């Protein structure tokens, strides 16, 4: 068990919160995955959620992102509660205000890289030509020049994750939720992806909630929290 000195514990940011949770509880049958978690994320802040496997860190991300409805407590986004929204409203929120990067497999294999990146814009009703033009702007910024027409199967793992980052950022979301974004990459590729993700997010003042079990990856965050047995047991920086 990692122990954090009580002097550096800081469970919440002092900046205004864009996303916050209070007393968050989530159960799966008899198992209590989250046991009263309090959390806040400031605008533009990068926070890493760490913890061992099965500690509840991914469940926390899913509850904060509106993917899973909590069984207790509340989640607020920009001051408004989102945990009591219906599935349709939560989907709309995820589509317009949030971005997502997962470990692997989130790109649609039949679509080109450019089409994959433009997909969230299309879902928001943006015209295809406009969506693809906006998506194309991300390729040079993420070192993906010339990759626009390639399929996911024709790219390396690192390139695919950079495409996934571009897809998460293309709608200029308020928050990006990244669940083990480098879990399937080697060290160098993982660092490249994290570097691009955090700098691009900072460029548009987007907050990032990063779930990882790797200290190297967590080092890209401004603040770390540790989840253990469904509780936030510590926070760093």
């Amino acid at each position: 068990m990692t122990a954090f000195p009580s002097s550096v514990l800081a469970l919440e940011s002092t900046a205004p919160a864009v996303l916050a949770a209070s007393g968050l509880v989530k159960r799966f049958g008899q198992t209590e995955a989250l046991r009263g978690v309090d959390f806040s994320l400031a605008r533009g802040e990068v926070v890493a959620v760490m913890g061992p496997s099965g500690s509840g860190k991914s469940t926390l991300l899913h509850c904060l992102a509106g993917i899973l409805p909590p069984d207790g407590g509340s989640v607020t986004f920009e001051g408004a509660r989102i945990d009591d929204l219906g599935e349709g409203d939560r989907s709309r929120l995820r589509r317009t205000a949030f971005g997502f990067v997962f470990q692997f497999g989130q790109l649609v294999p039949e679509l080109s890289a450019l089409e994959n990146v433009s997909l969230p814009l299309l879902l928001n009703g943006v015209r295809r030509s406009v969506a693809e033009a906006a998506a194309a702007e991300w390729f040079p910024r993420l070192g993906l020049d010339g990759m626009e027409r390639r399929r996911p199967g024709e790219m390396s793992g690192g390139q695919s994750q950079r495409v996934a980052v571009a897809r998460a950022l293309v709608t200029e979301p308020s928050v990006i939720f990244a669940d083990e974004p480098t879990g399937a990459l080697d060290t160098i590729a993982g660092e490249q992806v994290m570097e691009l993700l955090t700098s691009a997010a900072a460029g548009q003042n987007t907050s990032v909630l990063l779930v990882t079990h790797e200290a190297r990856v967590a080092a890209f965050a401004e603040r770390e929290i540790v989840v253990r047995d469904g509780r936030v047991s510590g926070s760093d920086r």
Partner: protein
Amino acid sequence: MTLSEVRLGVRLAVADGRRSAIAFGLTALAVAIGTAVLLFAVSFMPALEERDGRSAWRQPVQIEDPSQARLSMASFEDAYDGQTLVRVFLAPLTADAPVPPGLSKLPGLGEAYVSPALADLLARTPADELAPRFGSVVGTIGPEGLRSPGELIAVMGVDPAQLGGWANPIVGFRTEPAPHNLPPIALLILVLAVVGALVPVAVFVATATRLAATRREQRLAALRLIGATPAQVARLAVVEALLYTGIGAPAGILVFALTRPLVAQIPLDGGTWWPETIAPPLGEALALMLVVQVVGALAALAGMRRLSLSPLGVQRRVTPPQPSALRLVPTFAGLVSLIVSVNVFRGPDIVPLVFVGASFAAIIIGIAFAGPWLTALVGRVLGRIARGPSALLAGRRLADDPRGSFGSIAGVIMAVFVASAFFTFAAYATIHAGDFHAPTRPNVVQALPYNAASAEVMAARLSSVKGVQSVLGIRDVGLVASSGDSMQAWVVPCESLLAEMAMPEASCGSARIHTILPPGRALASSYEVVSYDSRFEELVRLDFPVDPATVAPLVPDATSVEGLPDVIIDPIAFGDAAAQLPVTRLYVTTDGAAATSERVRAAVQTMDVTATVSLADTKVSSVPQFAEVARIVGLGLIGSLLLAGCSLAVATMTGLLERRREYTFLRAAGMPVARLRALVLLQAGVPLVVVSGFSALLGVVVAQVILRIWSASASAAEVPMPDPSLALVLGVSLAVAMAVVVATLPAVDGLTRPTSLRSE
């Protein structure tokens, strides 16, 4: 194959819980429906033979020595209110005259036995419209004497003299049916309909067993990875396929048994069926069960080929090679072959039918071959024009795996092609069906009494029938020139005749002789006029000089007129001699009510049992079974599309499972489930509609090509577009197929729910 392999194969097949159950249920259902359709197909000929056997007694057996005859019989096909009605007349010649099947004894003079359906109709019909045609009804005919449960037939006792030239002397009734004498075009269409129904079923059975391949491949690939040999893996795949067909095929027998009473209600060749007569021969049924298993096993083995090459079972998605446009070549080759063979071999011989049939088959196979190319094209176009994510994803999925997408609908496409070609033929047959009838006004009934002596009396009596406005007597005669050239003529006042006709282009003027002759043919200077009775015995012979000054054409263009003789002669041209010519044809003008027409028919046949009566809308079709075959083709199409719906549903759900992870991520990122449902519908519906439309168009074009070439040498030059009911049948069929796909949509939500990410 060892028992442990069988056990492992079964365990693998059911290992996936609910998902297995859904795929298994749909696949087994498709196999069951396909098996049931094939069982009906092999039951068809035995059922037809059974039916023909029941009615064989009505076909007289020719005898060499008339003195041995024990019974005189004649059979007439007639109608009531548009329904076919058979009247069989029996006149015993000896005391031991035979009794036909279904009757306890021969009807006496003026008595009749009627079928249960006719008895029911008589009870519901006003007495003066139908009952007088049969005399006194003394009993009903048993099933052994009927072709079908709903057949309208009466067996009546008459005096031998009443039958005139129609009498057939017989010793006993025929027990073996005469061979079916279908016209070549009907034969061709029936063969095409059967092939068109069987090929899709075979494709569906193969497709259905292949559909679960994605899940199977993942499991079996894992076995390959731990050292299973390709042969072992293939055997496991066969076990799994046999599980589907092993349950689906017997379930098909159940579907067959449950739907047989409904299928028995479908009329074909003049009637519905007794359900118990629709039964496949045991040997053929057993062979069919075996064939379904073999087809399933072969399809499973075919699906294993890729897996054997790639034990990891994971294929990275790169831009796949697209089907070549060369796939269109067989279709065009079939079209060219068809045009050449129809042009080269015209006529009723069997040779052209073989060539035409082969070309037709080549086109059908060509469509199946070209299908993936067309599906890929549809996918590329859809992907290019898509504005939303659903259409974009559907288009890309189709373009990526056109063979997989087309596999589910291949059978449908062939069924659509055959149906659209058939409906075009049917429309042609329908519009030319009445060509042999004179163009009378709708309210004119034609009666042809075969007893010439009774015609005058009949005309007088018909004038008093309720609703009859006038009766025109016509004398049919032959004109024989000294050169031997002969023509047909009607002796009737021109103005009176035209009053009965719907011929605005015709005019009488002052001429007494009106010709309806094609260009290049003219009247001779004199003829002998000959009149015959119903036994074609000569009654009257008169000299008839033709005065050219009294001759004029009846219409400007005689080639457009059907059903009239070569010449219309005013009785005045014969002077007093006209009275010697017997009236042979009556045109009865009515008030237009259907009941009046039936009263006229009843009155005519009461006076002369052998007289035929035809209404203005009575059509003489060269292919009388067209309407019924059209119904069968239509039902076959709907059935095919129902099967395709099952195949499509399983295929799209399998595709969804393949992309479950990606789609779940998309939903987590905010994609509404409605967009995913739209994706499933587009992926299934767009190729179905587009490729069906292509097949329908090709079917119409092919039929039009055949008919245009054929009709160019015939008088019936007009080639119509297919009957509008084609659009209805196609629409209903597509709706049925899509309804099956829609029924699977609720599963989309469950399979891609973002909450499942925690278990990924």
